[in-house]
């Protein structure tokens, strides 16, 4: 499910917290269910909510569990949205969690400073949130945050060292193959590393074969290649994440694939909405 969340000038931090929380938990069936701080005319929803994937695990913090989309892996990891007085200050991703003390175990935290910006038609300003069984992604271009937490596929390493995480925090400001930030911006908080050797944090990025765009009659076809984590060790498939041709779309846009499934694109990356 993709929610193109647009807010009005009276949106409070609590409105923002409530809306994000309700989007993650599937309490928003239509944009009419968003808070009074939302611009309901210009907000939009696509796709379907992944029932049974996300659970809020604590009453006082915005901490959630997420079950891996491949049930055979049996993995559940945790993430926490930390707010300060004005913004979603940071996002933490954790291998595990202790409910009694509400403590993340083996976690990585990323500063994001995402906040609602009143909708302006010229800029189409707002926050795009994907909540699927494969990922949660929060794209807030006006405040510079393009963050995704995505499921990973197994590698030989993760099958052997089974405490390894199968989720990654990826900053999609980092464009694959282009510029100073190429192939970076990814962090797996806890995975076996043969160099240590032992469990460690893995800093990584996006790897995927560059694709092309071909004209077909009066339309064109965009080829999507699966993306993988790029590191010195084994690579892992990034579920629902594809590399698309260079500068294929401008800005952050949506399109439908051949199966009529929606995609959200940014920086030559296409994310599956469902």
């Amino acid at each position, binding site marked *: 499910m993709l929610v193109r969340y647009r807010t009005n000038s009276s949106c409070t931090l609590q409105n923002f917290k409530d809306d994000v929380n309700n989007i993650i938990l599937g309490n928003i069936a239509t944009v009419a269910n968003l808070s009074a701080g939302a611009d309901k005319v210009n907000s939009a929803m696509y796709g379907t909510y992944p029932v049974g994937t996300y659970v809020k695990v604590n009453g006082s*913090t915005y901490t959630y569990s997420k079950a891996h989309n491949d049930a055979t892996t049996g993995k559940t990891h945790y993430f926490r949205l*930390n707010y300060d007085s004005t913004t979603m200050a940071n996002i*933490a991703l954790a*291998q*595990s969690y*202790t409910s009694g*003390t*509400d*403590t*993340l*175990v*083996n*976690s*990585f*935290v990323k500063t994001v400073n995402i906040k609602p910006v009143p909708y302006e038609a010229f800029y189409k300003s707002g926050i795009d949130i994907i909540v699927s069984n494969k990922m949660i992604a929060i794209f807030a271009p006006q405040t510079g945050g393009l963050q995704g937490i995505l499921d990973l596929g197994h590698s030989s390493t993760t099958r052997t060292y089974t405490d390894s995480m199968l989720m990654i925090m990826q900053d999609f400001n980092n464009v694959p193959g282009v510029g100073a930030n190429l192939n970076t911006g990814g*962090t797996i*908080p*806890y995975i076996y*590393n043969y*160099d*240590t*050797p*032992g*469990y*460690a*944090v*893995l*800093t990584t990025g996006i790897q995927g074969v560059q694709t092309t765009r071909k004209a077909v009659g009066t339309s064109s076809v965009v080829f999507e290649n699966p993306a993988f984590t790029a590191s010195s060790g084994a690579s892992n498939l990034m579920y629902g994440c594809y590399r698309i041709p260079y500068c294929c779309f401008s800005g952050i846009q949506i399109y439908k694939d051949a199966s009529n499934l929606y995609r959200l694109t940014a920086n030559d990356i296409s994310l599956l909405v469902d």
Partner: protein
Amino acid sequence: MNKEFFQKVFGQQMGYVYCYKGTVPEGESVAHYITEQFAEAAGSNLVNTVVTELPMFGITVIYNHSETNDISNPNFELMTDLVPDPIPEPPEPLVIPEVPAPEDTPPVEPSQG
């Protein structure tokens, strides 16, 4: 095991690494137990840490993603911060004082006689 080693292990250039000196009760998860102990020592459950065992060295360490070292608990012995060392200033170039060129000495005239 120096700062550079731990920067690679934790992929960070900030935060602090502590060696865990306590024991873990039998049957407890090492990561969960040490994390909870650390959160108690830090006085907050909102810590972001990674616990890793280093079998080559026979120790268990915990990395805390924090800009300050606020831990004063004997079970957590500070090993290093991960802040990069400042790059030393390049040495001043050696200045060689100019030596005045020796005055030209006139050639010795052969004596006549």
